[in-house]
């Protein structure tokens, strides 16, 4: 006979569910050794545990790519969709079921390239969801092709003599989209910062967009610094409404004070070459209307009988 620990016994008697990390663990992750995706996964799982999120209340939606395997490793509901279209499926889930929480994971190619249209419009809808883009500046699953965020001059399988296009400044793009309400950037190798950013995004009502800088240990170890050393021009953004900057980061990179509610200041930071990798909350505006709420506000809840009555009124208009 199994014996229950006292704690478990009390929980069971009082019907308190105390979620542990294991409750959020799905399949064993199959990313490459040293991949930043592991850190993001455990960060999300920790946040769920800390927040005691009911696993059945979450739908994790992804596209195609290494990052898009994410839902398989998370024991919530998960939809591993098709390349570039995660935002559309996620929008559908939230419009269909506002009671569910939606988490989107995409890669840089997935979001900024093939899913470009859905990315821009998804930001404009400002549907209530958390969007994490794992940006390793490369197409990795298809084995080393140039992505929109690959730095100019990078040698890849499709640009063996160096890529010719300058990398896309995705932050400045997003700051130009009407209705952007939460835009943060963090990195997979700054765990404390990553955790705090993901948590802030989770609590934001509206589309919380988090670009997570990371390296692909196989194809882009040079991303954001040489030889795996973080020496790229990083800047931590500090603001009382933003992501707290731990003491430990002070040695890593400069810190600047930035009012995250100031869109123009955010644009300036995003455009400045020397702060091309600002870490923190770039822009935050909690008063932007949330698409699912706007739509559901006009969709009034009626009983089936009332619906039949109203449908009959419509039919009256067509009756001879």
């Amino acid at each position: 006979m199994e014996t229950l620990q006292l704690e478990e016994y009390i929980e069971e008697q009082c019907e308190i569910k105390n979620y542990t990390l294991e409750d959020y663990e799905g399949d064993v992750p199959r990313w490459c050794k040293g991949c930043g995706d592991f850190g993001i996964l455990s960060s999300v799982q920790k946040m769920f545990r800390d927040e005691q999120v009911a696993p059945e209340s979450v739908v994790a939606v992804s596209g195609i790519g290494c990052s898009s395997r994410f839902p398989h490793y998370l024991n919530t509901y998960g939809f591993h969709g098709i390349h570039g279209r995660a935002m559309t499926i996620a929008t559908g889930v939230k419009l269909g079921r506002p009671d569910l929480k939606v988490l989107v994971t995409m890669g840089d190619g997935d979001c900024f390239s093939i899913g470009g249209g859905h990315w821009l419009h998804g930001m404009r809808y400002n549907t209530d969801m958390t969007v994490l883009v794992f940006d390793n500046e490369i197409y990795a699953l298809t084995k080393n092709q140039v992505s929109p965020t690959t730095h100019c001059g990078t040698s890849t399988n499709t640009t063996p003599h160096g890529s010719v296009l300058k990398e896309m400044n995705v932050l400045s793009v997003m700051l130009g989209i009407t209705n952007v309400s939460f835009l943060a950037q963090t990195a997979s190798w700054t765990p404390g910062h990553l955790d705090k950013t993901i948590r802030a995004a989770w609590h934001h009502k509206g589309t919380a967009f988090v670009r997570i800088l990371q390296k692909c240990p196989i194809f882009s170890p040079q991303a954001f610094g040489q030889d795996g050393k973080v020496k790229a021009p990083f800047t931590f953004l500090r603001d009382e409404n933003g992501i707290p900057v731990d003491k430990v980061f002070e040695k890593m990179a400069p810190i600047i004070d930035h009012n995250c509610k100031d869109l123009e200041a955010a644009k300036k930071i995003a455009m400045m070459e020397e702060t091309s990798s600002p870490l923190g909350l770039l822009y935050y505006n909690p008063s932007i209307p949330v698409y699912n709420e706007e739509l559901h506000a006009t969709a009034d809840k009626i009983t089936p009988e009332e619906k039949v009555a109203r449908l009959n009124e419509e039919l009256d208009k067509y009756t001879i």
Partner: protein
Amino acid sequence: MKEPKKIKLEEHIVEFVCDAGEGAQKAAVSFAKVSAKMGNSLWTVEIIPSEIQPPPHTMGSTSGNRIRLSSKPVTNGGNLTNVVVAFNEMNLLSRIKGKMLANDVVVIIDNKWANDSDETIRKQYREILDDLKTKGANIYEVPIEEKTMTLIDNPQRGKNMVALGMLGYLYTRDMDILADEIRSIFKKKSKEIQDNNVALLTLGYELAKETIDFQYVIESTPFKVPMVAMNGNEAVALGAVAAGFEHCSMYPITPATSATHALSEYFGRMGGIVHQAEDEIAAIGVALGSYYAGRPTLTITSGPGMALKTEFLGLTVMTETPLVVVDVQRGGPSTGLPTKIEQGDLLSSLFSTPGDAPKVIMAPTDIEECYHVMITARKIAEEFRMLVIVLTDANLATGTQLYPRPKLSTESFPLPIDTSPIPPGTKPYDWDEETGLSRRIIPGQPGGMCRTTSLNHSPEGKVNHDPDMNQKAHRMRSRKLMTLQKSLKKPDVYGDKEGDLLVVSWGSIKGPIDEAVDNLRKEGKKVGSVSLQFLSPFPPGLKEIFSKYKKVMVVELNYSDDWDDPMVNEDTRRYSQLSMLLRSHTLVDVDCFSRVYGRPLMPMEIYDALSKKLAQKSK
């Protein structure tokens, strides 16, 4: 004055055309409505200008309505036009060029152009009318505008009512009902405006009485049950609400958009949502996500939109998510003929996705079916966890038909979204070996957490590359079609149950085919027809039905090579879409007759094709 001669008719086709903005649409709709109230069945087709703001007095500016009136139920637009009321000769010319007019057509035209200050207009007016006259037309040149101006200053705001009065006389309509109808149109305007319009109507009636020495009588008995008149897009939209759809995700595309306009209107009052997505791909993505989360959702599009949705169609099949996609077909390929009918999307609907993607395809044959098909489509989508594509077309979308008012009940609505706990160990794809069916788990159900993936997967929903598992998953998805097929009835055969020729079709061409079959049978020919409501899976018993006839031929509106075209022979001929499917399905040598005129085929054109087929020596 002599009593006009009464000409009794079983049916007639009348057109009312004018420049855009001159009010033919409004007047013709009133005429149709009054005819329906008196008990005539009808099918009306809108005549839409080819441009947004066309220059007046050109062929491109022609706007109006074509109304087929009958003492019997009508399922299509019929043959050539018998009567045309036109406000200028270019409107008339557009109908001549469209080859829509009978040789002995009765034309009522405003005679003001005969004395126009512009010589070119005077000349073309005379030439067009003379040409028609030599072909046998019966032309009445009437001072419509001049007479209108005896009552009002601006003839543009009233000559449609005068013309309506003339039609009222010509077809012996009940002028009291017509006057009431006019008052109801202007019910928000002052009594003076209502009185003026009724006076114009009476003026028209008297004008026709002085000019035309006969009247048509189409027997009519008021309907015993309440009837509704609407177009196919409105029927799809109302049917969708009645079926319990609560969300629609769409992207604008002709000729499908008006269905979503109607839905936006209905959902606004009935608790639903219409999401206009950023593109066709997003439209289906949102619909899929919403249905995956348990909300009955549909998307409505047309051919080019279907092409863009292809990858998502495959995802829907792979994930066994219920979804209903309505494709209001138009002319293709590419942008093709955006406002015109074609039945060109059958094969692409079936086969566009990479790999094998079994799905259900249904096609309503008339506007009444556009309504009812939506209820069946949702039920199949959910019970079988399948993609259901409903193929309507531009003809159904814009035509108006009368049909018995549907009875509504809450029974066609879905149950509330299931939030009950899932027993531990339940698999998201717990396929039944026999039927391929499995229970759908809906996000939010405690204990049911599982992954839905576009990759091949095991019953547990886990990514799986095992050869046997891929074979099994394919087999399970295919079995569902078989399970559905078992529940389908053998299709009804119209006309002779055995004989010389069977005509097979799908969609809105059924009506004209059945009329052609009627006419051939009146001549003693042994002909039958069958229309397929399900194109995937095919209903049972087709081979057996085919075996009862010497010849089998498909008639449909997509392209095929004609036998007498250069270089066409057994080796080279490209068959029409349904015939291609039926040939492989039944191994019967099914022939085809198909056209891509951008309009429905007329019963008489089908009659000719069938007669030719019957006369052929070989199969």
